């Protein structure tokens, strides 16, 4: 059995891994784990990732969780072009810096923004207090400003002149609130230009393919009560 990637493309980190693997022609079996059906809680999936999250990788007997770890593993194993995770000491440090920062910064606000603006009302039929949403969107704005000022600056890509895994992780993150109707790029020409560059580097078709699921999330039919019961405990934290 070759490389297996356990993904749900509704999830930001899954999209980053998917785009990376496809772009680099890495052969893999896609194993879809539908989060909205609670499939990540199954016993079978726990064998692959006891943390019960996607993405997860299975390479023979070796299993691996965490998108950042998976991306770096794929970089090394498949000896992808240097620019994805550069050898140069300082260039690599810039990528590492972004990959570390984003866990508790952009990831947080993008997930909350998408769920509070769209998934809670549309899918779970739960209204989110306007102050909560406002505070989340303000936090998102703050993160976007940091993304522009501290990471992107006047460069073409986040870690320098070439696209790296940092850009994949960032762009897939930003598409989350975009799918919920947040105008992330409208008032930010610098970020909009960077997005164009990333899409061009990745390839428009692959980019759109990876985002097809999340962009249709707003059209999802409301969840039935069984699903709601299953999901509510784990998504409640996204209301805070």
């Amino acid at each position, binding site marked *: 059995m070759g490389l297996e990637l356990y993904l749900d493309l509704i999830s930001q980190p899954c999209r980053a891994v998917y785009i990376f693997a496809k772009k680099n022609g890495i052969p893999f079996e896609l194993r879809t784990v539908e989060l909205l059906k609670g499939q990540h809680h199954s016993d079978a999936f726990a064998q692959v990732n*006891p943390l019960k999250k996607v993405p997860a990788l299975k390479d023979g007997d070796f299993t691996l969780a965490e998108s950042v770890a998976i991306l770096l593993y794929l970089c090394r194993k498949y000896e992808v072009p240097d620019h994805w995770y550069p050898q140069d000491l300082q260039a690599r440090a810039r990528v*590492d810096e972004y990959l570390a920062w984003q866990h508790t910064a952009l990831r947080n606000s993008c997930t909350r923004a998408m769920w509070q603006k769209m998934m809670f009302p549309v899918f779970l039929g739960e209204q989110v207090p306007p102050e909560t949403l406002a505070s989340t969107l303000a936090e998102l704005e703050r993160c976007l400003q940091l993304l522009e000022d*501290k990471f992107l600056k006047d460069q073409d890509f986040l870690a320098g002149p070439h696209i790296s895994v940092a850009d994949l992780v960032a762009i897939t993150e930003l598409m989350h609130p975009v799918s919920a109707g947040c105008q992330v790029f409208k008032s930010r020409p610098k970020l909009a230009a960077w997005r164009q560059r990333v899409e061009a580097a990745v390839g428009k078709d692959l980019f759109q393919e990876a985002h097809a699921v999340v962009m249709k999330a707003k059209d999802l039919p409301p969840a039935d009560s069984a699903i709601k019961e299953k999901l509510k405990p784990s998504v409640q934290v996204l209301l805070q």
Partner: protein
Amino acid sequence: MWPPPPAPEPGSSPLSTESPENSCCCENSGLPGLMTTPSETRSSRMRVLGLGWRGPTGTEPGPGAQAAYRLRFRTCWLWLVGVPDTCLSMGLELYLDLLSASCRAVYIFARKNNIPFDFQFVDLLKGHHHSKEYIKINPLKKVPSLKDGKFVLSESVAILFYLCRKYSTPSHWYPPDLHTRARVDEFMAWQHTAIQMPMSRILWIKMLIPMITGEEVPDEKVEQMLAEVKNSMQLFEEKFLQDKMFISGDHISLADVVALVEMMQPMGGNYDVFLNSSKIAEWRMRVELAIGPSLFGEAHDRLMRLAEWDSSTLDPMVKERICELLQKFK
């Protein structure tokens, strides 16, 4: 440290003062005895520069050469003591407050590997991370930060990887084997939200918030946080540690250092997360031993003495933020 001290008078002979504390960086920090550039590194830098008062074959240098020497010495002296924020600074600087777990990880790693650096104390309790000077170093207003010449880096995980590579530390810290390295990466990614955040929150809710605001965090929230920590410790034991000696296998790696310093954070508030698992308690002992008990103890001293801290000296802006934080918990 700010402000930087004045440059020495021309013609002075600073080499006569060889004490390790002869550095501006920590004199005003209130933390005497903190290591800056060890004297052996200073003398090795001198050797690299080929400095000496004497000309070749013991002859006394002429007046022009003496003037040139004085200029080089003034330049080099400033370099040796690591004056920050001047174009003469060439050494590695680490901006730290050991109250922060991420800072402790970087400090322990650098010290353990004898990486020479200037300790730049950024007092979190005094709000120094919000100062204009520090924002120039790290606009994210967080510690730790690294400054290596003109290169500035934030995020402890990135800093640890950078130090590993630049100083070619022993391979067990970040093993080259594909699978073993992936295990370290996996933990380093997971810990941000699963370990660091909840452990840090325990210190806030059990100690800092009551101490600073005089108010307790609602019991319900406390219970929720403690449950989260318990869950994380369980996952740590079952998925990351399992039956191994260390996270990556038989040897200590960056992952163990990062894990342990973060799990120590609640100790500052007298909350011991190691009590429930003998496996984790044993792993903790192994990690402390591998690091060295005296280095480990030194790194955690400020945290362990937090209860003694006079919170009336807290920077008012920091106090305001903490009060806001309390509101979020209510």
